[in-house]
């Protein structure tokens, strides 16, 4: 499992639009989109791919990083894997 961290998204962007951009740039179908609105100035989203490894996502990430959409430059980072729950 690997996640992609997108920031500076247009405030009114829909999940379908995000999925459409990702597929256009060759990403596989994502499994979950979790919105991170923050203070509203640079809304973000964590996109989870259940069956994709981090190395694959790192190879695809430059394709979407810096893409200009609806007057916004989207930034993309491969998110580190989630930390194990403390016992």
């Amino acid at each position, binding site marked *: 499992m690997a996640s992609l961290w997108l920031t500076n998204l247009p405030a009114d962007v829909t999940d379908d639009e995000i999925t459409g951009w990702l597929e256009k740039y060759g990403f596989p179908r994502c499994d979950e989109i979790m919105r991170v609105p923050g203070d509203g100035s640079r809304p973000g989203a964590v996109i989870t791919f259940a069956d994709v490894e981090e*190395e*694959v996502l790192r*190879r695809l990430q430059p394709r979407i990083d810096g893409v200009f959409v609806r007057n916004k430059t989207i930034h993309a980072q491969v998110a580190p894997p989630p930390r194990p729950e403390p016992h």
Partner: protein
Amino acid sequence: MGLFDRLFGRQPAAGGDPLLDKALDRTVEVVEPKLALARDWRRRLAPGVSAAIEIARAGAQCLQQVHDLSAANWSTDPLLRAAFANSDSVTQVLGRMRELQRYLGAPGAGNEAYAVLGMSVETRKVLGAALVGEQVRSEVERTQVNFGDHRIRIVAAGAEQMRQAAGVRIFNELLLGVTRELAKADERRKELNIERSMLQARLRMLEHNERALSEEFGGKGDDDADPLAERAEMQRRLDELNAAMAAYGGGTEGLDRQLEIVRDALLSARELVRIETRTLRVDAMNTVLEEAQSAGQTIGFVHVQAPRITRAFAAVRVQRADVPAGGLSIAAVERTL
């Protein structure tokens, strides 16, 4: 419906060239857009992409038998009985499927949807009672099949659209496998590059030390060490690393090598990916029976075996009325508490 979608229809396209071109374009778009800069890339990639199209088309056409997926049908459909513990679990699974919910919630969606139900499938050996000759014996080894992890990712308005969408999905999964191969090659190339840099630095240090020793002691250094042999060994290792890096496509040959990796990975899918219809005769406890036995019922599903997955798939038809509304089920939470 786009040209690309029609690739995975019932019949291979007559002539085929424009459709193959479309698949080739999609391949470089997904796998590595820079490959389109390589010389004669279409002709060189075509065998691999054609093989992938055939796998996708054959796989999609395996989804012929459509099961009505509903709690009411659980007791009458042998596959549903084997795949779900009880009729309630059918409803629970339908309530969890977001793709299905999204499809049925879209404006203009009909009252039924066709979908591909994916499930994990595993067989295990268990000890149970069995009739051997005229005697009932306990602790007889039997095989049990279990289904779980139900998922619906492909939803369409009709059976043929569903099969086309399944074909596109299989093709995309094959391309994802190729991207994995390229990512692996990238990682290996990076490791080799680091190792080579370290070796080059050590070689430089060795040369520097030799010079310093010969200047200070007139060529008499440590008698135990043989600097010439050490240097020769390092040079040999360096040559090996250079050869390994060339195999992963370094420098100007990078694109050509990547093109070969993509083509070979797609061609190898013919041996590595197996999509076939499988039938089993099972009893009510999912114990696998001999085909000749009159007890139990026959279930059929599409079995997919690939390097990273082993799953069962079935084409299903879902009625809107059978899908519970998504979101939090207060009743279920109350029961849990």
